[in-house]
């Protein structure tokens, strides 16, 4: 879901509710099991069944405090490429990253061209044009970075931030090498990057993680439009069974008890283990928010002892969800 808004002349009259009704009905009719969005304001979307499913944040690290904890042995070569070549080289890298990380979506060719690679001056916010860097490692492009210089000076010395638009590596070595490249670019006073997940490798790569000045906020919000299809559609690291009693006032076709067993969800008459709203199921869906966290915040109700731990064992994922761009 994207570009959701109401003109200021018509706020607080039900226009948003009518729009969400139309969109979620349409998504349901199309057979799309989940919907995800970035919320301009967090309180808006819970009432429509969206739950906070991931976090991300920005860093601002000064050049003189960006050393790695363990010196990096570089094996690859970074080269700057033009936009056309970037459009060819970068998508396979992201596709490999996406296989490991929940929360990323597949960009179409048009998305890459018009949003990721495109660089209209009005979107530069005072900085220079996008630069495209590709890391060649072991015979392939293993990482890339898109960044901008924003020249600033104080008494003749550079105070410039380097703005990282996106940096991805398809292996730990590749990720470390592309970040070392970014952190070492001359004539910058600091490196700024946005929308990084709280488990980004940088936290353990750098010697002083506090110096990253990480500031975290809510990121992706997820709504299970079709609970059965959504739960059956994801991968689980552990087997087991849990029965959810789902409350869903806005999409009542999801209401009732659902048994998730060994990766398949079906309706059931069995006693429920956990009672929760669709929004909370959306929060847990990507594996970045645990049922235990939701229980601690009184967002869900454990009806059978041990059910929360059992559900967490099933839904857990080794990496936090990461959506690297706001859409």
């Amino acid at each position: 879901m994207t570009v959701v808004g109401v003109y200021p002349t018509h706020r607080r009259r039900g226009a948003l509710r009518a729009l969400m009704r139309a969109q979620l009905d349409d998504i349901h009719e199309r057979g799309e099991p989940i919907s995800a969005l970035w919320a301009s304001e967090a309180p808006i979307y819970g009432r429509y069944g969206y739950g906070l499913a991931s976090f991300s944040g920005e860093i601002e690290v000064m050049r003189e405090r960006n050393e790695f904890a363990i010196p990096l042995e570089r094996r690859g070569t970074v080269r700057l490429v033009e936009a056309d070549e970037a459009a060819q080289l970068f998508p396979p890298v992201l596709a490999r990253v996406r296989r490991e990380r929940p929360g990323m979506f597949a960009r179409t060719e048009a998305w890459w061209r018009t949003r990721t690679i495109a660089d209209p001056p009005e979107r530069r916010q005072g900085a220079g044009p996008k630069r495209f860097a590709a890391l060649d490692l072991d015979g392939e492009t293993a990482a890339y970075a898109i960044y901008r210089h924003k020249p600033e000076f104080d008494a003749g010395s550079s105070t410039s931030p380097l703005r990282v638009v996106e940096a991805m590596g398809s292996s730990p070595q590749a990720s470390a090498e592309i970040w070392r490249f970014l952190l070492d670019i001359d004539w910058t006073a600091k490196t700024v990057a946005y929308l990084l997940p709280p488990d980004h490798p940088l936290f353990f790569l750098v010697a002083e993680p506090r110096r990253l000045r990480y500031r975290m906020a809510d990121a992706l919000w997820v709504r299970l439009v079709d609970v059965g299809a959504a739960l059956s559609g994801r991968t689980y690291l552990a087997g087991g069974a849990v029965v959810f009693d789902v409350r869903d006032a806005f999409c009542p076709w999801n209401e009732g008890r659902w048994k998730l067993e060994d990766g398949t969800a079906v309706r059931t008459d069995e006693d429920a283990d956990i009672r929760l709203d669709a929004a909370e199921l959306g929060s847990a869906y990507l594996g970045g928010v645990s049922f235990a966290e939701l229980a601690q915040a009184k967002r869900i109700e454990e009806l059978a002892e041990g059910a929360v731990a059992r559900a967490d064992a099933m839904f857990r994922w080794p990496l936090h969800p990461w959506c690297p761009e706001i859409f």
Partner: protein
Amino acid sequence: MSFEVRPTEDLREFLAAVESIGQYFGWHPTEDDPFRENLPLERMQAAFDDGRIVGGAGASA
């Protein structure tokens, strides 16, 4: 108050619906806006009040 809500049917409606959020970001969508290629007309819902677009919500899969 009830609003008519339906998918946009042409570029003019599409841009007016996108502007419902664009204005808050200081953004005036134009014909060459990247959203045009990534968001089909039929997936951009618009809310109408007396024939005027007063809100929008899009989805792309």
